């Protein structure tokens, strides 16, 4: 199917229409999928968004209305999830459109996101840990945004130096490293800003 869309996107007028169709048609399927995942009725979404139920009904009919950004923001707020509005290459948009599955699409609410579940984070850190072997360099760019270098380094490590020596190996939650979520995955390399590539190694004991 992707070859078909590639062929169509070569036509500039189709490209323009394709972008509009993602809003005209695609959004209704996304909202419907999010409602289904949460078990929400139209009335429930209407209540959460402060809109009238007939308005929700219209939004759920593909192409019936073109929701503006403010409407989408209110819907995102109701689902307690983010809304990304950004410019993108056509290839990315086409891949998104092709891979979107109305039956399984879901976006977790803030409370459902693992990295925001604070109590569980601590438990995960104990049971699911790895050592960072770091010669030198800053680790800041690899930290989740809610974690400071102080928190990563812990007591006794000077954040000012922004270095972690092998003697100062620290155990942190594997879930706290973006892109490295599962123990079964091969250990990725982490790039530090002022050194080359430093490997992550799994804890051995």
């Amino acid at each position, binding site marked *: 199917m992707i070859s078909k869309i590639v062929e*169509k996107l070569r036509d500039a007028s*189709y490209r323009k229409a*394709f972008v509009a*169709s993602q809003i005209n048609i695609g959004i209704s*399927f996304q909202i419907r999928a999010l409602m289904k995942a949460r078990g929400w009725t139209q009335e429930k979404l209407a209540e959460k968004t402060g809109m009238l139920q007939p308005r929700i009904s219209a939004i759920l009919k593909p192409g019936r209305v073109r929701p503006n950004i403010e409407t989408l923001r209110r819907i995102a707020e109701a689902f307690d999830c983010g809304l990304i509005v950004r410019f993108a290459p056509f290839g990315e948009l086409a891949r998104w459109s092709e891979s979107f599955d*109305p039956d399984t699409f879901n976006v977790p609410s803030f409370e459902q996101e693992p990295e925001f579940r604070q109590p569980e984070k601590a438990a995960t850190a104990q049971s699911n840990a790895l050592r960072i072997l770091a010669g030198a360099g800053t680790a800041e760019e690899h930290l989740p945004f809610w974690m400071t270098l102080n928190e990563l380094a812990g007591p006794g490590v000077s954040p000012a130096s922004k270095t972690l020596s092998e003697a100062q190996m620290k155990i942190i939650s594997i879930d706290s490293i973006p892109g490295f979520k599962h123990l079964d995955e091969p250990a990725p390399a982490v790039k530090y800003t002022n050194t080359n590539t430093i490997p992550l190694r799994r804890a051995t004991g």
Partner: protein
Amino acid sequence: MIDKPLKPVRCYVSPAGNNKIADWYRGLSVQERADADEFIKSMRKTAIWKMPQYRPLLKGHSKLGELRWTSEKKEHRLVGYLEKGIFVALMGCGHKGKIYDPADALEEADRRKSRISKGEATTVEYDL
């Protein structure tokens, strides 16, 4: 890429060999075509078709159903029937109020379905 199989959709081909769904598609504006593409693609990934995107059992045409979407402020319909998990598209048309455009769209869809069952007409895979 999505790895589950898409719901099969087939298009009515007249006894003269014309793919009538392709003819309908070519008659749409560019925006209508893009919206139809997006809608039909999403529906083919949806396991269970139901209202408001799909309406089964049209009055007086109990074996027919229709895919429904809006594009360019016009109601669009793809009338056909589901058989063994395959949607056979018989007729693409518009809809305003309770009137189809063309007005005899459902009667024509019935005739086309009858021609298929008699072996006078055939179908091809939807590949638009």
